[in-house]
């Protein structure tokens, strides 16, 4: 169901054609990362650390090299020594020297699963057997597994050269605190003095993984002239090219990255893990293609996760229901190297509310766990879990409806965020009103141990670089080449935007994801940016095509180009008419092919807001929480491809429910990951979830030709808080720890 702030004037946008890559994906034909097979291809394996923190005294690879069937072995000695240099990965930046050490450990291993060496052999079994023969001599060091422990002055130090970035100034002492940030506005003390009610709580959340079903896979071929080709499963081919070039000190022009289909990423397939290793191995094995594919265990132990966190929130409100002050301290695990999403979490934490007095502090802290990567609205779920449960408690103790309380304090155009930035046109209030009016919120909920919770969420979204090009075919159809990897229907959402621009049906456009040599630089499919930014590039391409085609029609008719009108696939000038197909068939006589390309870097990405409603039933004996009903409401700007917008909302909600109730990394005291498989790292299955209803609100983004806002990320922000609030309403306990797994809930029920 869709509610629109302004009547839609579109012909194609908002329709639901079958996706263009659909048949390949339902018949098993689509080729994902590990599906590639090249002549003479070798397979690889990676040796990983069994220790969470250790100095590497020596690595002896001779036995592996001598093992029959082995063609190459690589260690950190094969990687160039890099200066510290920061590369932008879209949803977070990364220091390249750290990234290089993350690919293959140099002097220390910093987490269980940290890669040490890679082997290429005639098949993966041989490579694994050979990797097991590599002798590593370690000096084992005490691990640091908790941010509070890591921040203590006497904590073991992970990175000797690390100094705190203290509000922009570098500290002097070795530390595990990589950075300390602060945003503030107004007078916090005064704000709390004005409050009639103050709620203060502390929260902890566990490290969790993106959980994409496809393990990482990369294949590389280095030919004798030094040309590198990489086939991989990635969210962004250009990002792989850039990172590989920097880490291996190769000119980017020597590297061509061909993105395969991708089996999910959620932020975890932006940074490289395998690609540079495959390049090293191909080079060392006499220029044979080498494929490296991770096992599920490797994926969980050594890629992805997002930060566990420790968050303190204090908020005050007056009896009239106005929030008078808000304060938060967020401490996020960065994993082994700096770069947690605490900065974006600070942007999320009070974003839905008008605050005159607020202070938000963040700490980025290294611990002996995998280097964290972006995960869908990075940092947002943890932050909203904390703030949105405190908001719920304020509303409840003031005797106010939780959605009405949010509406009363909700931000709109012109309101300023804690960091001072003013909102442009946003749709929070429309979203909250739609949630209030939803069939779900209006329906009664009865029965023991049942409760209904709501929460709001914000995500800033992103723009970035995108490119596209197109050519008109002789039959009047258009071939579109674009640089955004398609993780969930984006080829079609882009084809639809070109179709809308040209006034053609979607079927007249065929979209292809191009490799790095075939299209202009395009940032990855992340930051909820693809339909927005690549869509904008596609719109520009369409405008150019229209102008060029009008010129050709003018040439045919011998009139000035400005006397040709184009609409819905037909040209007209005075009495003369011509369809695009008729014109396209004559292009060879009218000046040759018509092609166009465009590159954009739009800044006006409109933030997205969501509100989720959930009903749960708690089993008081076992602590199991069953989700009975779920509704996700969200402002999509303009929902270009509504089925897939709704699917993003449903998928984000499902991931958030898993985060809320089950998912967590479990480490032993030595820092060994105990649950690196899906039986023990439990993600939601079909039986755990109800249908997930969606309500798409459309408040057009004034910064986009079609009003598009990003939609992919914000749906993971509210779920954990919404479920916690529902649990409170069901059984009267405020859960402050994620996941709210059965054991924790039983303990909380017994304590409270």
């Amino acid at each position: 169901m869709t509610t629109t702030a302004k009547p839609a004037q579109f012909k194609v946008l908002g329709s639901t054609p079958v996706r263009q890559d659909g048949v390949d994906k339902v018949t098993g034909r689509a080729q994902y990362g590990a599906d590639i097979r090249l002549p003479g291809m070798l397979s690889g394996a990676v040796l990983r650390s069994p220790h969470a923190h250790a100095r590497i005294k020596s690595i002896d690879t001779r036995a592996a090299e001598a093992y029959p069937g082995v063609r190459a072995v690589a260690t950190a000695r094969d990687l160039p020594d890099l200066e510290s240099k920061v590369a932008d990965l879209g949803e977070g930046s990364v220091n390249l020297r750290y990234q290089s050490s993350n690919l293959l450990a140099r002097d220390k291993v910093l987490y269980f699963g940290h890669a040490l060496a890679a082997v290429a052999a005639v098949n993966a079994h041989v490579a694994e057997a050979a990797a097991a023969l590599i002798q590593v001599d370690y000096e084992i060091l005490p691990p640091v597994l908790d941010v509070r422990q890591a921040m203590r002055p006497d904590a073991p130090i992970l990175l000797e050269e690390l100094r705190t970035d203290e509000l922009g100034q570098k500290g002097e002492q070795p530390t595990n605190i990589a950075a300390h940030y602060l945003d503030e506005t107004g007078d916090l003390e005064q704000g709390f003095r004005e409050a009639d009610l103050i709620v203060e709580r502390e929260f902890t959340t566990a490290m969790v993984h993106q959980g994409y079903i496809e393990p990482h896979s990369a294949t590389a071929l280095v030919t004798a002239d030094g040309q590198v080709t990489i086939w991989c499963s990635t969210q962004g081919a250009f990002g792989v090219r850039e990172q590989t070039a920097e880490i291996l000190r190769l000119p980017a022009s020597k590297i061509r990255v061909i993105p395969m289909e991708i089996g999910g990423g959620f932020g975890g397939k932006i940074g490289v893990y395998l690609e540079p290793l495959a390049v090293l191995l191909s080079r060392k094995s006499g220029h044979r293609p080498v494929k490296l594919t991770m096992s599920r265990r490797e994926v969980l132990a050594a890629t992805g996760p997002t930060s566990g966190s420790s968050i303190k929130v204090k908020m005050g409100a007056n009896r009239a229901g106005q929030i008078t002050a808000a304060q938060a301290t967020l401490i996020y695990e960065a994993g082994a190297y700096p770069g947690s999403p605490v900065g974006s979490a600070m942007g999320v934490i009070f974003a839905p509310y008008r605050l005159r007095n607020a202070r938000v502090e963040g700490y980025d802290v290294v611990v002996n766990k995998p280097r964290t990567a972006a995960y869908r609205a990075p940092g947002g779920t943890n932050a909203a879990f904390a703030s949105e449960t405190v908001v719920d408690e304020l509303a409840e103790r003031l005797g106010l409806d939780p959605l009405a309380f949010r509406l009363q304090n909700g931000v709109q155009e012109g309101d300023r965020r804690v960091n001072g930035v003013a909102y442009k046109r946003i749709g929070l209030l429309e979203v909250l009103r739609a949630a209030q009016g939803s069939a779900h919120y209006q329906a009664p909920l009865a029965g023991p141990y049942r409760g209904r919770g709501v929460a709001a969420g914000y995500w800033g979204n992103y723009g970035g670089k995108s490119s596209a090009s197109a050519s008109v075919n002789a039959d009047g159809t258009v071939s579109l080449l674009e640089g955004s990897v398609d993780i969930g229907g984006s080829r079609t959402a882009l084809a639809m935007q070109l179709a809308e621009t040209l006034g053609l049906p979607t079927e007249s456009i065929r979209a292809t994801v191009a490799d790095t040599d075939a299209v202009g630089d395009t940032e990855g499919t992340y930051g909820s940016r693809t339909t927005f930014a690549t869509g904008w590039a596609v719109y520009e391409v369409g405008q150019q095509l229209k102008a060029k085609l009008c010129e050709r029609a003018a040439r045919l008719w011998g009139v000035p180009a400005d006397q040709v009108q184009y609409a819905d696939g037909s040209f007209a000038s005075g009495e003369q008419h011509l369809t695009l197909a008729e014109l396209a068939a004559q292009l060879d006589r009218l000046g040759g092919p018509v092609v166009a390309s465009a590159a954009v870097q739009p800044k006006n990405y409109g933030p997205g807001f969501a509100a989720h409603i959930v009903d749960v039933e708690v089993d008081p004996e076992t602590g199991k929480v069953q989700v009975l009903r779920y509704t996700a409401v969200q402002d999509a700007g303009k929902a270009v491809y509504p089925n897939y917008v709704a699917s993003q909302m449903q998928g984000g909600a499902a991931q958030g429910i898993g985060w809320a109730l089950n998912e967590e990394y479990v480490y032993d005291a030595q820092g060994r990951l105990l649950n690196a498989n899906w039986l023990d790292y439990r993600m939601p299955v079909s039986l755990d979830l109800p249908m997930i209803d969606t309500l798409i609100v459309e408040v057009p983004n004034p910064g986009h030709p079609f009003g598009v806002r990003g939609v992919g990320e914000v749906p993971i922000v509210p779920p954990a808080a919404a479920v916690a609030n529902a649990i409170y309403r069901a059984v009267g306990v405020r859960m402050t720890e994620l996941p709210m797994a059965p054991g924790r809930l039983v303990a909380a029920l017994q304590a409270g």
Partner: protein
Amino acid sequence: MIHVQTTLNGEPVEFLCEPRQSLLEVLRETLGLTGAKEGCNNGNCGACNVLLDGALVNACLVLAGEVQGRTLTTIEGIAPAGGLHPLQRQFLEHAALQCGFCTPGFIVAAKALLDCTPQPTELEVRQWLAGNLCRCTGYDRIVRAVLAAAEEAQA
């Protein structure tokens, strides 16, 4: 090496394999059928689902040597000649996939369900598919697609 003769998607097939090789590895690496996916290689995700004598199995948990003389159907053998299976069509109509990596496994698993339970309830669909992980969709559209395919077959 073991010499294996089997019927694969309706055609006789022979291959050689090592005793340690899984059916999934042989399908993907030896026979070039990459429609069955490896998500976990230990029976937790269903991305590798195939039918063995009509029964749903995780190909990562079956040794290739075990399929001697048996009949296999993979995602590549689900569609009738020149068309799509109702499940495939309904997955497309319902937008029941995002990345599509789990899709072959879901379609094979759902086919096994409809073969034995032509008119399943929503709960039966959810129970049957609980061995298949999808991280993208939240299952809503997958469950609806399976129910719609069941209805289509009945019509």
